[in-house]
């Protein structure tokens, strides 16, 4: 296990950022978009994720070792330390934990967040602000190569499908019931997958989703497990599917089938599903862009538009007092005049013959 670290490099200056907050959950979702767990409206990107996590709400009763042991269940912990400077609730402590891998941090966040721990409730969040430039670079590279691998494997899968398209298939009912079993085992427990794959061993294995750290040729069980962890980030998918599975198990013969066909029908009829940018919309976009471009041009006063936030105008110092500000402005104006005057007027004209007294 890693040793605790104090004040080395990036491990200093804890800041309180907005993404540490637990957002209020959204309660106005319609049934079909409702997940198993109440969630806030938030978009996850790779920028928000990190192998650094912060654990808040740890009871201040000397359970650091236990906490780190718990974390280590989800992957190698490289470093950790209490964040004494971080504002904590009464009788609780805040810890910073650096995992070796992002996938471990993901799993830890998913399994530990909002779970009780020695009488307290943990809040686990990613803290990407502790990353070094190199950490950030590697995180992005990993993600990119993972997605590219996924795309490649998907292409292979499609080819395989084309090749085996003529294979005979069993009846629909068998397929659906099998799938329900698969889903449930998969959602409840990862180990269920192992038996599941052996169950299908007669058939060519389903091309596995590519993994961030393991290639598909390694053990299948492991891969599936990681894949499950990936689900953290799109709870909506698993939740939604779980819900669907549940409803289909409860009333499989009647309403579910109807619902499904209704849906399909509606979508096929109108084919409105696909997003088609309306003409007006496109024009709007164009107009807005032109406006923005104009503004930028006039603002910078140059042909090159200025992007991003600007540096502060040095002259806009606020003295928080009206009369002081007035004085300041007068001084500023005088200075400007003086500056421009010296620039424009040649010194020679100012010379007056000196009188001697």
């Amino acid at each position: 296990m890693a040793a605790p670290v104090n004040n080395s490099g990036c491990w200093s200056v804890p800041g309180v950022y907005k993404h540490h907050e637990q957002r209020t959950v959204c309660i106005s979702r319609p049934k079909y978009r409702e997940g198993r767990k109440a969630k806030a409206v938030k978009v996850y990107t790779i920028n928000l994720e990190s192998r650094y996590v912060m654990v808040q709400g740890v009871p201040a009763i000397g359970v650091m070792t236990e906490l780190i042991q718990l974390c280590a269940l989800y992957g190698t912990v490289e470093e950790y330390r209490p964040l004494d400077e971080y504002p904590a609730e009464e009788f609780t402590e805040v810890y910073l934990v650096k995992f070796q891998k992002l996938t471990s941090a993901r799993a830890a966040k998913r399994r530990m967040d909002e779970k009780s721990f020695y009488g307290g409730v943990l809040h686990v969040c990613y803290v990407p602000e502790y990353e070094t430039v190199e950490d950030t670079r590697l995180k992005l590279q990993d993600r990119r190569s993972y997605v590219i691998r996924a795309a490649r494997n998907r292409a292979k899968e499609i080819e395989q499908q084309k090749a085996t398209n003529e294979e005979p298939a069993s009846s629909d009912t068998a397929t659906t019931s099998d799938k329900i079993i698969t889903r449930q085992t998969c959602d409840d427990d990862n180990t269920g997958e192992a038996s599941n794959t052996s169950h299908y061993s007669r058939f060519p294995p389903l091309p596995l989703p590519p993994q961030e750290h393991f290639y598909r040729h390694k053990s299948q069980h492991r891969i599936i497990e990681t894949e499950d962890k990936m689900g953290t980030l799109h709870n909506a998918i698993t939740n939604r599917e779980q819900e669907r599975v549940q409803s289909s198990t409860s009333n499989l013969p009647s309403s579910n089938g109807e619902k499904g066909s209704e849906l399909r029908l509606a979508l096929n009829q109108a084919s409105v599903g696909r997003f088609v940018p309306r003409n007006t919309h496109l024009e709007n976009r164009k107009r807005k862009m032109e406006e923005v471009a104009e503004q930028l041009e006039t603002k910078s006063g140059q042909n090159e538009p200025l992007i991003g936030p600007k540096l502060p105008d040095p002259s806009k110092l606020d003295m928080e007092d009206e009369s002081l500000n007035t004085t300041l402005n007068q001084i500023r104006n005088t200075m400007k005049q003086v500056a421009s005057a010296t620039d424009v007027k040649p010194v020679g004209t100012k010379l007056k013959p000196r009188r001697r007294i």
Partner: protein
Amino acid sequence: MMKRSGLSEGSERFEYLQTLVTEFQDTDSEEAKEQVLANLANFAYDPKNMEYLRELQVTDLFLDMLTEENVNFVEFGMGGLCNLSMDPECRDIILQSSGISLITNCLSSQREETVLSAITTLMNLTTPSSHSQITDPAILQCMLRFSLSESPRLRNLAAVFLQDCCTKEQVAEAQQQMQGQQTAVGIPLPKD
């Protein structure tokens, strides 16, 4: 049989995504739109959904959000593009829809999350043919200012951009252009 169940699972997913897109287009509720948009953007994180989202032209949907007045729309749309642009095919679609200028405008956003998504997306969009547009001096100058920011996330990401996406000569040139214009102290940052 395995293949079949894989296929029908896919079509189920496709239908669900299609329902989301339809709701997004049909609803007048700003709140519902935000929720659906966030949903779609999160689905874009999973590579399995990329091809469905491409087929549903969600790339255009996200791009359209970038010029909305509602800052949540912009943030979620930009987040969705950040997720999608990791995929080479989606990247090409964004490039074809002249996404670079729309995304570049997001660098001026007041929201840090939007700015971060925009930077990552621009890095993802870098190809031999788009390179010159993405390393425009104005963008490099913006990144140079970000690299002095007080926010570690913004600072780091801008540093990665400057180190990985452009040449040292380009950075030096941009630095020179910046000098004399302004001093690099106390840059106002995205607010939250």
